[in-house]
């Protein structure tokens, strides 16, 4: 695993994620209400939680990669963040009235998405080691990817995909779209794992005592 300093940084990411995503979730929690109050249109804090929790998950996953480390340690951090956020997503699933199948489907996608960003962060972190450069690159990439995938390559947009999972419509009508999203992420992740592993091997050979 990582050093104490790195884990302290990761821990602030875990806690920060839970606090930032938790605030809209707490506001979105429904209370028993009369029907006439419920049918009145209002801003859905549930949607706000969905967007914040998804975007932050990608951002923190990328941060894990930027800090460097082995594939195993980077992916373990992403998985740990996913597990820590599990109570949130469970509560959110209850708010929108869906079951375990949709929760697992959405988390599967989110995990894959975060893992891709985390592994993408590894070479970026090595190429631009300064924090300020990493900051600029991280958010530029995230914004570019999120905005672009609203128009092209939509199966790679986590907000669209999670909106489908936690949305109102039947999923069977969108199964092609969903399948494309999972397959795309799986392929990207496979390539990134292979490439990162190759780089790790090369670095090991390069750094080995002659």
């Amino acid at each position: 695993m990582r050093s104490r300093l790195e884990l302290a940084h990761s821990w602030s990411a875990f806690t920060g994620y839970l606090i930032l995503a938790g605030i809209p979730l707490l506001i979105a929690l429904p209370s028993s209400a009369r029907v006439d109050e419920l049918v009145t249109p209002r801003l859905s804090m549930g949607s706000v939680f969905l967007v914040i929790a998804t975007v932050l998950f990608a951002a923190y996953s990328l941060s894990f990669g930027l800090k460097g480390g082995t594939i195993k340690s980077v992916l373990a951090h992403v998985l740990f963040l996913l597990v820590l956020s599990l109570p949130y997503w469970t509560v959110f699933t209850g708010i929108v009235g869906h079951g375990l199948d949709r929760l697992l489907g959405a988390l599967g996608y989110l995990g894959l998405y975060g893992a891709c960003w985390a592994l993408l962060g590894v070479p970026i972190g090595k190429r631009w080691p300064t924090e300020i450069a990493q900051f600029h690159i991280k958010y530029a990439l995230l914004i570019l990817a999120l905005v672009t995938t609203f128009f092209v390559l939509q199966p790679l947009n986590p907000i669209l995909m999670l909106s489908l999972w936690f949305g109102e419509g039947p999923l069977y009508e969108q199964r092609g779209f969903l399948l494309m999203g999972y397959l795309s992420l799986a392929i990207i992740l496979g390539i990134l794992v292979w490439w990162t592993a190759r780089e790790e091997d090369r670095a090991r050979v390069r750094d080995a005592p002659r």
Partner: protein
Amino acid sequence: MRRIGAWGLVMVALAATCGLAQPQIENVELGLGGRFLPKAFTPIVVSIRNDGIPRSVVLEIFQRAERGSLERVHRSLALGPQTRQHLSLDFPIKSVSAPLEIVLRDATGELAHFTKDVRQSWSESPLTLGIALQQRPPLAIIDIEIEELPKRWTSYEGVGRIFWGRADPARVSAEQRWALQGWLVRGGELIVLSGTNWHEQSPAPPWWEELLPIAEGHLVRRNGQEIFWLEGKPRPQAKVMLSPQGYPLAWEHPIGDGRVLLVASDVWPEELPLPTLSQARPAEEDLLIAQALASLTIPSPSRELIGIILILFVVVVGLSGVSATREARLPFWLGGIALALSVGLYSYQHGAAFSSEKHSVEMGVIQLVGPVSRESYWYGVFFQHSREDSLVVAADAISALSPGALPSSQQGLVRELTAGGEWRISLYGERNSTRFLKAERLREPWLSLRLDGSAVALANRAPVAVQDAIAYSAGAFYKLGTIPAQAELVRPLSGPMSQAAWLTTLTAERRRLWQQWGRLSHRTKLIGWIEDLRASPIGVTPGEHRTALYLVLVEGD
């Protein structure tokens, strides 16, 4: 040989043509005498010819209205080969500008499409029908034969008044009789012109005799006039409406919300004004169900409990960071806590108390009037989550409502008549939306009572109990308690109380229902309540939480 081959080919071609021939909608007739009242159920007769192979098809009727939800009626049909079918059903024509569309389809798609223009056929006021009239009143009357009288009470919805002339009531079939009685109970006005028509009208079957305001009717000539007048013994509830020169010329007999007028001569007396017909049902009737649904509280998992648990979890995660960074490894036990917490939260949120996907309220008024039990049900549903919904409704008429007090979804609605005679209502409920329906049916009376001095004999043939029943006699209320399901019993009439005292015993919901639909007259015999969902004509669907309340009113002579 060549000729045989050619004939063979012709025969094959003919057979193929027959097989490929599509069913056709030959004609569509609507209304009574070609006229209809907008928004009321209108009888529609569709003539279908099938020259091809036997087919299972669906007949669909709809109207593309500019406003409001699209309502469709479906009916499955089995078309035999080389047959012609005439299918009759009732459909509410809501727009007078959009044509009525009738489509025949099967699994492969649309087979036939018929468009019926309705612009020239509508009437501003309820229709007035005339049967075998010799002397016509100065009104716009649609003449029809007895055989053309509707067989369903719903077909009468656009009819306000019927003049009955020289026609034998014995020619009315059992179905037509039921429909006519239902129409009367719901507010219809039957005017029987007797006089010389009496020879044809009498002797009449018992059901007809019971409708008339007088018994033992017979014709007389008065003061040496040539005109025949009817005389008879007025029934207890009948009243004389006009009596020039001291002789009754017209009697009235109330039947439910409607009435039967009997005129002693075969001419409508000019001195007796007829009220202008209007659509009887005021829209305010529907507001109560909207108010009841609006005030329904939808239970949710405790916001405070979940909030505190999540905050505590974040605190634990934050604090555990101290030990985690000291050991320089990810604390997997924290992952275990997160998993356990998730399982607990999931179980709590999906518990039985919060599992309903839709919450509904149903209110009903069951009026047992003479030969029929007239039942009206208002149904309001709140969809907590979006879902395709399918309701099975055992009623004669179903209509979508927009009460106005709550925004109602504008999504379409499909009514499908099943083989069992029930309706299957298909609709899509959006998340946090409401829908309203009204169902009506007429049944044989299932509760009877006989007041006998200081006791009342009751017979309840329904599978549900009538609760907190009250007998009404001579201006006083008598507590009868619960009348069990399928039971016959005798209860004493003791401890009379006033109406004000009785009203104080009602719950808020019952009082609201009584104030809206309750009515007290000298004909009222019993008031009771049912809260059992088995009394509902609207089937409960999985994931539905429904509260129901029905008012039972028994009236009699």
